[in-house]
């Protein structure tokens, strides 16, 4: 494997992408899991598909379209949640399906042969370009900076939004910003494992980390590490057995979660 890694740039790109993706999903995934925003993240991911379709249709980079749709829908959920009584869970369900439908509509309107959407649905880490890596690096650096620089404010906001509001923190802004970061992360991860499987990378590493720590920043750090270990292992296994890489990573991390859960239960029973 190591020789292959040294020889093939596509494998190098895949590895770098896996590491970058692990960093961002360790941080954002921890927030998503703790604030119970998994449904929301899934919704954003599927709504992004509408943006991808639009991108193809009007001839812009699909990821840019995805970014607009993902950002727009996350703001819509935040705004509607704050201003009406509609349950965000319901709202997300509606946006989720409309997003996918819009994507399919736009693609059907695109002249010529329809593009292969499976790389967006299922991800294709082995065809990541240098441009993609630059984009992902910028986004990941931005998210890491924001998290570290304002860590204590985020922690207070995530734990108790009301108290944070009362002492003067700008919680409405933070909520919108948090949703924006989730949308950005989802769009970044689309390239790696695809829309359908984004959820697993955001949820399984933090869920596993939670068995081992009670500290928010340790949970983020551990999630990053777990993400890295298993996405690289997944890549390696998929290379050896010639199976789709995205799917391999997800099955691996998911299985590890259930194994850990099972072992932890047995341990607490002794």
């Amino acid at each position: 494997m190591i020789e292959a890694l040294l020889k093939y740039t596509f494998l190098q790109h895949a590895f770098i992408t896996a590491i970058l993706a692990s960093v961002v999903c360790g941080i954002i995934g921890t927030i998503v899991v703790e604030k119970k925003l998994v449904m929301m993240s899934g919704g954003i991911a599927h709504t992004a598909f509408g943006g991808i379709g639009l991108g193809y249709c009007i001839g812009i980079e699909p990821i840019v379209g995805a970014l607009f749709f993902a950002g727009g829908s996350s703001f819509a959920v935040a705004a509607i949640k704050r201003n009406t009584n509609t349950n965000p869970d319901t709202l997300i369900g509606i946006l989720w399906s409309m997003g996918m439908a819009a994507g399919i509509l736009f693609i059907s309107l695109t002249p010529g042969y329809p593009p292969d959407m499976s790389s967006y649905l299922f991800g294709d880490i082995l065809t990541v370009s240098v441009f993609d890596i630059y984009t992902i690096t910028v986004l990941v650096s931005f998210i890491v900076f924001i998290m570290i620089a304002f860590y204590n404010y985020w922690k207070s906001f995530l734990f108790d939004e009301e108290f944070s509001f009362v002492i003067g923190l700008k919680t409405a802004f933070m909520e919108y910003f948090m949703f924006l970061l989730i949308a950005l992360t989802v769009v970044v991860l689309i390239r790696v494992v695809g829309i359908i499987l984004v959820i697993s990378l955001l949820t399984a590493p933090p869920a596993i980390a939670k068995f081992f720590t009670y500290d928010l920043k340790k949970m983020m750090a551990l999630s990053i590490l777990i993400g890295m270990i298993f996405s690289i292992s997944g890549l390696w296994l998929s290379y050896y057995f010639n199976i789709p890489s995205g799917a391999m990573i997800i099955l691996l991390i998911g299985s590890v979660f259930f194994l850990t859960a099972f072992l932890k239960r047995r341990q607490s029973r002794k």
Partner: protein
Amino acid sequence: MNREDGKAIDVQNLSVYFGKQPALKDVTFSVHKGIMLGIIGPNGGGKSTLLKTILGLVTPDKGKITIFGKGNKIQRERGVLGYVPQVASFDRLFPIKVIDVILSGRLNKTMKPFKFFSGEDKKAGEEVLDSMGIEALKNRQIGQLSGGQLQKVLIARALIHKPAILLLDEPTASIDSQTKNQIYNILNSLVPKITVVVVTHDMAAVSSYFDYIACLNTALHYHGDKELTQETVDETFGCPVDLIAHGVPHRVYREDGDVYHD
């Protein structure tokens, strides 16, 4: 002393509706600086809503609230308000330790990048942990605390912020009576330096610890000193509540004959 200056909280004709249902209807009263006020009333009577409206967490449909004569947004940004929410509202599984909860009270509206807690912040944390008697719990995750312990942590967090007005929502719900007394004694010691408003079900505490009470059941039925009559309580609760058994009330010395009734 001009009465206007003395008003920590002034509520005028406050109405809050959830859909068509009124949570609060035309509530008017004021809270003077440096006193301890108890707000009592039945469940669903709007007590928490009143607190949240004062804090700005709920926007009123009608009416106005001022805090030391200014709007609550300005006062929030100046760090004037302190809040102790109900213990039941927390996700106990959240990965945060007692000391982290408390230190978050040291944050304020100026969101500086790379704000890490200084030695001074940590010292303040130690002091407030000591004053609440919970130094031993410093590094525990909040899920590892009892209800009473978490209550003290939340109070510590509010206190470290050094608010001028402290609002507490049922701080003694599901707590044993010894801890209750501890908590009320701590709150009493804060007054008159700060103003304390407590929403409570605890009728027994009403007689011993509070200066004034407000009886709230969507509308305000009584706001004054502790001379509660059986009539007022019945009216507030909508059904007879046994006052005598809880040892309420006894006469209170009226300072200047001011009348707070509406």
